């Protein structure tokens, strides 16, 4: 018997199934310290209490709603901004938060990237904002294909599927991206901006709710890719008692209304232990460092770096790909894509909280429509190459988007 057959047989073997009542017996063993919760609710909240509260909540909703829709001095945007001020303050008063979100993005992309055709990705973040006396911000973020840990002094980005990790000084994660108070602050600013509409405001069942519609920023002819570029609606909910944010949902308005982000949970933490912001890396992790680049590659602008990057992909030049920031694993990915031509390179642009730039590109794959095509039969690749220069050499290097 060959090893291959043996492995196949081993994998095909089934273990004995448990008796049907074992799960029920295990359920009976769950200690009383575990309590039933309603989704997004507090421990021990029961339907009876909810029913008692409904009538009162309906009355409050009518009164509060009527008051809210009275435009204050300066218009509805001003009154919304004033209404959100205590929400921003209370939401930001916790030393740390833990959030779980689902976003319609794509592996390998920035958090603001929108993929309407994609599957939702769940990410989870523990965030401590910078405190008084120079206490640094800290973050641990897990997102499908990668994990970020910033302990205030350095950042480690770990790619589990590749077994690669990158270390850099400072916090490479924009902690505000995951900080609920920052979301409220941004919405306050948006409420005052031209073109923003207040779509809904109400309060019911002990929860306040606001929906704003914002116009997308111009994209100069290229395809929309990031949340800020779409016309969009954002819904936030908060508890009127505590004024703390309890949820956020975002839709883009593109041939309909599509949900692109939603919080699954927001938990406000009283303390943020250092251990929370450390990654447990596997012992065989491969540390990737930025290689020194030849002088000819050292002082290039982002668009030229993108051009050299794709030219190296076409020429099969691994050295240049790695000198421009691709890890050994990613150089394999780029070389395996069978790029055969550069059709177009756009102007670099910045968006959202990403610290680098994006360069829009269109590539010919596998010889184009008349050729053999690339992996999956694709003949064209159209996307935005992410480049950043926050490294000690201040060089523009590849950071994703292929």
């Amino acid at each position, binding site marked *: *018997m060959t*090893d291959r057959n*043996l*492995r196949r*047989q*081993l*994998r095909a*073997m*089934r*273990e*004995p*199934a*448990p*008796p049907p009542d*074992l*799960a029920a*017996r*295990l*359920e009976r*063993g*769950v*200690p009383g*310290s*575990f*309590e*039933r*919760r309603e989704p997004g609710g507090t*421990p021990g909240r029961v339907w009876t209490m909810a029913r008692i509260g409904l009538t009162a909540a309906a009355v409050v909703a009518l009164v509060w709603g009527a008051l809210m829709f009275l435009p204050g001095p300066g218009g509805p945007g001003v009154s919304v901004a004033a209404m959100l001020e205590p929400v921003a303050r209370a939401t930001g008063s916790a030393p740390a938060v*833990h959030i*779980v979100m689902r976003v319609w993005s794509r592996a390998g992309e920035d958090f603001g990237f929108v993929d309407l055709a994609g599957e939702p*990705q*769940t*990410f*989870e973040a523990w965030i401590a904002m910078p405190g008084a006396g120079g206490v640094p911000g800290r973050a641990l973020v*897990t997102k*499908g294909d990668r994990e970020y840990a910033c302990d205030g002094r350095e950042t480690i980005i770990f790619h*589990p599927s590749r077994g690669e990790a990158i270390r850099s000084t400072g916090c490479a994660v924009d902690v505000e991206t995951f900080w609920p108070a920052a979301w409220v602050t941004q919405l306050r600013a948006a409420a005052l901006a031209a073109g923003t509409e207040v779509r809904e405001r109400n309060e019911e069942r002990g929860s306040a709710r606001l929906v704003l519609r914002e116009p997308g920023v111009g994209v100069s002819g290229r395809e929309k890719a990031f949340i800020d570029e779409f016309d969009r609606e954002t819904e936030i909910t908060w508890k009127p008692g505590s004024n703390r944010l309890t949820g956020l949902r975002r839709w883009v308005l593109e041939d309909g209304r599509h949900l692109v982000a939603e919080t*699954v*949970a927001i*938990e406000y933490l009283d303390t943020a232990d250092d*251990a929370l912001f450390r990654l*447990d890396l*596997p*012992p*065989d992790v491969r540390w990737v460092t930025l290689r020194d680049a030849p002088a000819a590659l050292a002082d290039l602008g982002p668009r030229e770096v993108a051009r050299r990057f794709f030219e190296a992909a076409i020429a099969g030049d691994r050295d240049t790909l790695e000198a421009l920031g691709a890890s050994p694993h990613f150089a394999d990915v780029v070389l395996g894509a069978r790029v055969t031509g550069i059709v177009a390179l756009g102007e670099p642009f910045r968006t959202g909280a990403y610290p680098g730039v994006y360069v829009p590109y269109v590539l010919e794959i596998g010889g184009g429509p008349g050729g053999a095509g690339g992996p999956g039969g694709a003949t064209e690749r159209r996307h935005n190459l992410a480049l950043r220069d926050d490294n000690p050499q201040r060089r523009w290097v590849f950071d994703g988007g292929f």
Partner: protein
Amino acid sequence: MGPSDLILVWRLKRRDRDACSELIRRHHATVYGYLRSLGADGPLAEDLTQETYARAWTRIDSLREARSLRSWLLAIARHELLQRARVRRPDEVGIEAAAAVAAADPPADDVVAQAERDTRLRRAVGRLEGVLREAVVLHYFQDLSLREVGAVLGVPPGTAKSRINRALQALRSLLEKEAAHDRSKPETAVAGDA
């Protein structure tokens, strides 16, 4: 581990009873099957599965990496089995008796041939040296990655890999010896059945 396990662990740490039900539903068959593959008979595997979950409820706060939820549970189950094996009574099936699992579930008529192959293979797995058998069970029966196998056994992934390779060699040798033994049996045994 998928993202849903991240959320499950987070809910468990918040003492959410529904999350306990989900943890049971999602992994109890894995834990039970793992214990059976390591040699526990049905009643012992049930008992140890319950003990595994009892430990899990009290130790959930010590789970640092939510991604390793399944391997964490299996590591607890393994610890419980080893503890029991150290103090086992003669009437209990211990970790060294994995071969007995082969006869635990009689096969249906239409899958006799496959079942016979499985039985042979399972018997061979049961005859492997303990550390090799554990690596095979975790990697092939439980579909754990080398990293996860290492985490359960408390060894580096490279060690897990070498144990699996050694186990495959040993299994092949055991199966070849058994096949040779079958071929050397006198034909009269078959004729006698007719």
